[in-house]
């Protein structure tokens, strides 16, 4: 599992979204790709999204994380105008999310993409391009280019009914990009894809960022998110509970694994001045600290206390570790 740098912020100080007032949202709706304020959706008596307030900067790759039933899909649907919020506000690209015209600047790959199976791959892309208002001449260039991008050129004349799940996911990605949108929502884009397909999706997402587009990514594959995203938020019970900047400086919570001899119980107890937890298991010492800046002090302390240190390895919390830490134990659905 990859270990990477990052900075975790709890929701009370989790970036700009909690500090923005309603007036600020309304005054500068165009400065972000996405802004929501106290967004709420209730189906009957079930609260799907309780109070979602977040911002997504233009040009960033944004990860939207949460356990099953956290309200992620409903939130995305509200941002796309598919579901009407019960209360609260949502802006995309500076206009209310139910604006029809703004959808011409947005692309969407639904989870488990399905479409008319009687269409061929080329026909599907042409249809979606026409629905986005693209001219025939432009489509003649874009359709082959996109089929090539997602590796489906040899299957351009094949009907969707003969496509595998992975091929459907690829053509779904292509339809989301056909009109070169400014904001792209990808809901589980790598589900059903083989490793080559996942690599392709990663490359496509980065290419979109390079051309200035914003990508809103929802995925359960945290290793993918970790590699791809600039920033993530964690959502629980329809509310943002934490934000994590994946491109921030490497300082932050770190787990340290050391192997040493002659470690006494007193020495381990003395680590409490830097460590939130320390556990000795034979020669293996595991402890957690809040900052990498204390690592030299810990090493000096161990050597000074007479221990023979053979190994001293700081390991950052992975996104999966963070996810589990924030979301807690799985108590079932």
């Amino acid at each position, binding site marked *: 599992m990859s270990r990477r740098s990052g900075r975790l912020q709890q929701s009370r100080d989790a970036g700009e979204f909690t500090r923005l007032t309603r007036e600020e949202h309304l005054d500068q709706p165009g400065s972000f790709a996405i802004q929501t304020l106290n967004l709420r959706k209730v189906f009957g008596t079930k609260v799907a999204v309780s109070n979602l307030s977040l911002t997504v900067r233009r040009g960033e790759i944004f990860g939207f994380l949460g356990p099953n039933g956290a309200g992620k899909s409903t939130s995305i*649907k509200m941002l*796309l105008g*598919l579901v*009407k919020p019960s209360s609260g506000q949502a802006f995309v690209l500076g206009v209310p999310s139910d604006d029809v015209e703004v959808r*011409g600047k947005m692309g*969407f790959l*639904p989870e488990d*993409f399905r479409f008319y199976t009687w269409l061929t791959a080329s026909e599907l892309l042409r*249809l979606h391009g026409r*629905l986005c208002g693209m001219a025939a001449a432009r489509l003649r260039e874009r359709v082959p280019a996109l089929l090539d991008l997602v590796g489906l050129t040899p299957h351009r004349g094949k009907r969707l009914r003969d496509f595998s799940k992975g091929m459907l996911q690829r053509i779904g990605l292509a339809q989301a990009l056909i009109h070169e949108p400014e904001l792209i929502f990808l809901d589980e884009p790598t589900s059903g894809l083989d490793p080559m397909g996942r690599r392709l999706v990663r490359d496509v997402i980065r290419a979109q960022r390079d051309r200035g587009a914003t990508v809103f990514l929802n995925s359960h594959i945290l290793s993918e998110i970790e590699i791809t995203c600039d920033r993530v938020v964690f959502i629980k019970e329809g509310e943002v509970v934490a934000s994590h900047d994946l491109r921030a400086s490497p300082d932050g919570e770190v787990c340290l694994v050391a192997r040493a001899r002659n470690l006494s119980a007193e020495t381990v107890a003395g680590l409490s001045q830097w460590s939130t937890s320390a556990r000795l298991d034979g020669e293996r010492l595991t402890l957690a600290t809040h900052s990498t800046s204390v690592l030299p002090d810990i090493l000096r302390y161990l050597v000074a206390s007479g221990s023979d240190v053979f190994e001293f390895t700081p390991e950052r919390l992975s996104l999966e570790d963070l996810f589990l830490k924030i979301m807690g134990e799985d108590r079932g659905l």
Partner: protein
Amino acid sequence: MGAWIMAGVTFREAARRKILWTALLAGSAFLALFGTGMHFQIKDITRQSLPPFIRYQLEAAMLQVGFYAVDLLAVVMTILTSVDTLSGEIASGTIQAIATKPISRWQILAGKWMGFAGMVATYVSAMFGGVAAVGYFIGGVLPHHVLRGALLVFLECLLVLTVTFACGTRFSTLTNGVIVLGLHGLAFIGGWIEQIGAMTNSPRLITVGVVSSLIMPSESVWRRASFELQSSFTRALQFSPFSNASAPSAAMVGYAIVYLFVALMVAIYHFQQRDL
């Protein structure tokens, strides 16, 4: 523009999935059977040396049977092909990829409606033309006001189509099918009750029939179409399986048009309001 794209897709879907061709093939089989029946009827009538007037009326009655069957086939085909188009795409999530494009929901619905309307128009034209051609070339008879009759049957199908759309925005495919077939069945039975009421001079039965026509005017439109297609002699008979003891008035046709328009508005309103 979005509505026209959706109409084109819907019509192409009917052709590509062989829905329209299968329906027309089944219709051709029906026409062949109908032509065979009429051919033998002519032979028997000729053998019996019936007077020309009686011969004409028998052939016209046979023609009426043909139009009645076409009406039934057209209504059933309209329901079966359109019952899944909204509720099915909503349930499967297919609609999400379309509804997130820069076209209004009313355009999606109107486009689909126009596509199906085009398909129904093709079917009704082909089948009406086929029955009329069989009547003319084999039986030597032409129905009265065939264009008016075809337009009324087309109106009936549009009415059923629109109610199917309106229910499809709220209910699942199966529930939608049950509701629309139930409504058409109610109108059918109501029409017969009204006929019997008119024949037996029972105002209460007529009222029951009229009320059922107000709930679902599809059968009334067919009875008006049937009235338009009949010869004056058949009309005078007043009661046979395909004649009318009481023909619905032009006002009822007007009511059906208003009903269709209101159902379309209801469908658009529900589709715009609902979560997808």
